[in-house]
């Protein structure tokens, strides 16, 4: 029994220790050092908490931090509202639901980098379909991704296109698993459509909404692939997000000590955010 226990759990434990815990420990260690390379060998010079102290003054990190918050709030907020509306609509149809669902989940399966490629073409100034359509309604063509005023909004719109289907799918599954009795009781009492939504659907759906929201928020904070092709963080720092700042400092500039400190800080922030989101959600759930 003891042997088979370890034989079945061992591989997962080993994998997580070697490829999860070890790199994280390494990251933590590196973050307190300055790394210099000479003749293919790395030298670690202790830097105390110097790397961490330098973080707040980093203009790129500031831009990344600010944009990530705008991006996450805008994109996830939009996705939740649209996804919930879509799930409500879809849950009311009986014929064709499977077909609608098949179409709606398509974007989830497309590689992020290809989403970037698709929308780079769609938003192209000269021939993009978006400018062709806005031209039809008499608007001037815009350089959506190259203009500081529209770049972040465009990236958010692309992310909404990409991930609304995911919110839709999880929320639809939630709606499909709701008990039917409260609705029948409401019908007998003559409740309106809005009352049904406000007093039955929303409270019952609170856990599913919370889980979907937390899930999405975590992924939104990691956004990298789409932005890599769409704007590369530009113009200037208009669409600079945290993952991109990390990528630039850690890999493009090879500042391992400083980049590691940034990574640790981002990880810490992410965990904090999730804890806050979940506990706020729990409280509102209890109040409802």
């Amino acid at each position, binding site marked *: *029994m003891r042997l*088979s*226990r370890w*034989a*079945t*759990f061992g*591989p*997962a*434990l080993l*994998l*997580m220790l070697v*490829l*999860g815990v070890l*790199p*994280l420990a*390494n*990251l933590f260690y590196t973050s307190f050092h300055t790394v210099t390379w000479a003749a293919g060998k790395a030298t670690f010079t202790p830097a105390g908490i110097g790397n961490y102290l330098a973080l707040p003054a980093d203009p790129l990190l500031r831009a990344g931090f600010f944009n990530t918050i705008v991006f996450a709030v805008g994109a996830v907020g939009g996705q939740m509202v649209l996804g919930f509306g*879509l799930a409500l*609509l879809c849950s*009311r*149809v009986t014929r064709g639901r*499977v077909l*609608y*669902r098949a*179409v709606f*989940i*398509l974007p989830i*399966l497309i*590689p*992020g*980098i*290809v989403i*970037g*490629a*698709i*929308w780079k*073409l769609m938003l*192209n100034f*000269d*021939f993009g*379909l978006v400018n062709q359509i806005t031209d039809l309604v008499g608007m001037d063509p815009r350089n959506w991704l190259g203009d500081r005023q529209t770049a972040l909004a465009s990236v958010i719109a692309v992310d909404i*296109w990409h991930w609304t289907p995911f919110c839709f*799918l*999880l929320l639809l*599954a939630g709606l499909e698993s709701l008990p039917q009795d409260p609705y029948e009781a409401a019908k007998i009492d003559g409740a309106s459509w809005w009352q049904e939504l406000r007093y039955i659907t929303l409270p019952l759906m609170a856990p*599913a909404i919370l889980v979907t929201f937390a899930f999405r928020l*975590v992924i939104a904070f*990691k956004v*990298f*692939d789409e932005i*890599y*092709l769409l704007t590369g963080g530009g113009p200037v720092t208009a669409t600079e997000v*945290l*993952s991109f700042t990390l*990528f630039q400092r850690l*890999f493009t500039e090879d500042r391992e000590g400083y*980049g590691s400190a940034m990574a640790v800080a*981002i*990880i810490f922030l992410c*965990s904090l955010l999730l804890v806050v989101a979940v506990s706020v959600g729990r409280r509102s759930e209890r109040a409802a």
Partner: protein
Amino acid sequence: MSRLWPRLFTHAALIAVGAIILVPVIWVVTAGFRTQISLLTGQFLFAPVLANFTEVLFSKTSDFLVNYRNSMIVGSASTVLCLTVATLAAWSLARLGWPRWVVHVFLGWALLFQMLPPLALAGAWYTLSRAVGLDNSFVGLILAHTVLNLPMALWLMGVFVREVPLELEEAARIDGASTFTVLRHIVLPLVAPGLAACAILTFVFSWNEFAVALNLTMKQTATVPVAIAKFAQDFEIRYTQMAAAAGLSILPALVLLLIGQRFIVRGLTQGAVK
């Protein structure tokens, strides 16, 4: 029965959303069949050409066939590895009487791990694979994708494994079945649909993964997303070829969506509902 007008409105709204989702994909896929001039002048009707596809697949400037093969290797290998490890561990944690704290600490860690930006770990993975001399093989990336998808697989397989009736396993034990026999002849057949759902998602996520692949691959080992990014940056104005490459790269996802929608939906929603 609901009345006619609300129903019509519902379908109209859903079809409109379907169009918003499908039109960009169709537009780009058809752009792959256009000539550059046809795309730039915005002709609505055009005579389809295959030049972009032949250029992307067989020319000297792109290695798309190689990239496709690489993605297939990494995707399949990491899927098989991830599913094996995750199913064993999920079953072990659910049924072999581990102390509660072991289960909580391990699954808690998996949840935290799932939240980390993969880029934060890519540097350490690269150093590690170079230290053991695997930096120009697929092993590093396969292991990286395995561990990246492990939390999701553990979670999903945990749900499916717990659905297997405990009485069946106990009955087999009483009849003298070994751990391996129980796994092979009772657990495995019963979690097969769950495995399918998990396999499709793991494969698709590995196929799509970019940030880690970018840092762990070289020219010969580059996967499809890495190749597309490089192509887009090197030849920014070859729009129609980029469209052709984009179309080719979503092919596996389309096939999986057509044959396995049921499993994909099940996999994606299982974690949230339970």
